[in-house]
């Protein structure tokens, strides 16, 4: 059955929406794709901005075959067009999600 990765946009006030980013056989692959999407969004931020991004990985889990697995990240951008900062964020996400399991 596999997992579907959704990026969520905004909240109740501004109207909730979803973007389906892909289908994955394994949860870990969906989580990796989720982190890459987060990094892509972070690249577009400006210094001082706090980016909050929410994804759901939907698939088999504790609530049955259509379980929601939310992942939420908030990161403040510190520099302009600094590839090192983006790489550091990518490394941080990879490092902290290694703690799963």
């Amino acid at each position: 059955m596999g997992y579907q990765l959704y990026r969520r946009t905004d909240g109740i006030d501004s109207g909730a929406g979803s973007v389906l980013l892909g289908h994955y056989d394994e949860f870990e692959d969906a989580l990796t794709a989720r982190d890459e999407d987060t990094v892509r969004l972070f690249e577009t931020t400006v210094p001082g901005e706090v980016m909050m991004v929410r994804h759901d990985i939907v698939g088999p889990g504790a609530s049955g075959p259509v379980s929601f697995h939310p992942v939420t990240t908030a990161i403040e951008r510190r520099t302009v067009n600094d590839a090192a900062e983006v790489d550091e964020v990518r490394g941080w996400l990879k490092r902290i999600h290694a703690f799963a399991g």
Partner: protein
Amino acid sequence: MNDSWPMQLAIDAHEMDIVRVRPKQFASGPQVHLKVRTGPLLVYCLDSKAVTSIAAAWAQAQASSAHLLPATSTRPESTGGGRRRKTSIQGHAFAASDVVAEGYQRWDVIAPTPAQKFAIVTTDWLTVRVHDRSALETHTHAWAGAVALAARCMPGVTTNFDQLLRDAFDRELAHRYRDEPTPSRSTGRAR
């Protein structure tokens, strides 16, 4: 040597634990810091951004993970269990980790997954693996208190924990009930 040395501290949180939130003023100046103790972890917050960003992470964890965690969990037995039990009977309790937080703390919350039965709450280089709702309550309670205290003794606090929690639940419920994807429809029963 210019290579950075990434470090990540991870702790496991089980059941209820001690919570203590105190202001601290150093002799060197008028600035007030907060000491937030949750179980074996002691976080020194140097400014209000550190307090509110960490509190926002725990508000998000409450909204997205509480319903997926068991009420209680059992701690894994340590290999030196006999000695450890004897020490705890004597009543000594020390913080195992001291963490200093200054400025906005980036955070990440991942709810329990098929392979991982705990929630993971990360604030910068500190990761807490939350194994049950009691542990989640412990941390949430601590950071709710920290925001309330920060509002009284630190400049720049523009929110409160109720607001952080409402925002987190708004995000959660908007997607869980209003815009629910329906991948199961393709596998629904044939008519």
